[in-house]
């Protein structure tokens, strides 16, 4: 009876391939989810009105049902026109990082960037 090695060269190769496959299985979805982080969600009157992928969106002006105008430019989004009195929403400027928001309280409208890849869980102000 000839002695068997615990792991032959072939075994080792298969093991290696399987390991690489495994790593791909685990990391590719993570990588993809990280890349899809740049999505802007627009809520009007507590309802989601729009969802915009900022990365794959060409520059344009979007008019919401309440007449507010949004500008999408270079992967960023801003409120550029609103009929509210205080105009605070227009002062927020362009946002693009997950967790950032633009709020227009008089128009009950919130634009927020969603995604998991962010630095803070919440902002106290």
């Amino acid at each position: 009876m000839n002695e068997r090695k615990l792991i032959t060269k072939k075994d080792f190769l298969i093991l290696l391939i399987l390991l690489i496959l495994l790593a791909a299985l685990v990391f590719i979805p993570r990588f993809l989810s990280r890349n899809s982080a740049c999505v802007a969600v627009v809520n009007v009157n507590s309802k989601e009105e729009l969802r915009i992928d900022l990365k794959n969106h060409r520059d344009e002006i979007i008019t919401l049902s309440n007449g507010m105008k949004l500008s999408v430019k270079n992967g960023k989004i801003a409120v550029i026109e609103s009929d509210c009195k205080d105009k605070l929403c227009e002062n927020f400027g362009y946002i693009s990082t997950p967790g950032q928001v633009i709020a227009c309280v008089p128009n009950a409208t919130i634009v927020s960037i969603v995604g998991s890849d962010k630095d803070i869980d919440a902002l106290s102000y």
Partner: protein
Amino acid sequence: MKLSKLIPTVSLILLSCLWLSSCSKKEISNTSSAVKMGTAVSVKTYSADEKNAVVLRDGVLDEIGKLDMLISKNQENAEVYKINQNSGNKNSINSELYTYINKTKEVFSESGGRLSVSSGALTEAWGVDTDNFRVPTDDEINALIPMCDDGKVVLTENSIQTAVGQKLNLGAVGKGIACDKAVEYLKNHADSINGAVISVGGSIGCFGTHDGKDTWTVGIRDPYGDENSYFAKLTVKGISFTSTSGSYEKKFTFDGKNYHHILDLKTGYPVENDLISVTVTANSGLESDALSTLCFVLGEKNSKDILLKYNAYAIFVYKDKSVSLSDGLKDSFEITNKEYTLI
């Protein structure tokens, strides 16, 4: 025979594949934002089950909507609105509203009359609650200050009677109470959720765990930066409540003079000191919200004992960008904007 030799190895790897992929499936987060209580509210829930994350997220928003119908002074048909319309008479209240009014009165009594739960008449004259800012005349202010005295409020566990023209105002604590409500609701559904973070107009409530950790990172708004900027990060653990009061919020200029929304009942005018913001983390949202306002009005030195009493911690930010912390906060606090210095 070669194939059979491989079977144990291959099956082992396949099993570990399965195990790992079940791990990477882990939890799902779900965020929703809405305007509630006259401010921006956002709720993010973490759960192993997407349906639960969505249902509980919407449940929190509903709770906050219900709360507004209790404590709002501007919303017609809200309990506090009705009490204010019926000032001078006795009004029956439920135990929940009693708790909010009583607790706010208690915390504000530490201010020596500079803050009160019945400050509505003065804040309305300044247009603070409706964002219709104006500067009242001195005569107007002097006539309104006595109407903001909590000594004139007769409160029992099921009734309240204010003086004629007096107006209850839970504006300084409403956002914090909303965080309390949200966390209370989530505690009752703890089986279906891992954790959540709630922001009600910048008052933050944290609950449970997310991504396998029980800490949450709360950014502290940079008073000189844009609306989404922060100058420091505070790490909080488990259930926690954080609120900020600052003179950079709700401000306006009239006749070349700057005004903000935090009124001192001793003068009837916005507080004037070297602070620009105070952030407080406390055991409840009501306390964090009330104490951040209280600390802003009283200043750092006079707030120390009160913070200890409530087991709360504060971050004092001065106009010159120097920052001072309560004892015990240093290890969980990190400045990210180098223009600010810890003193």
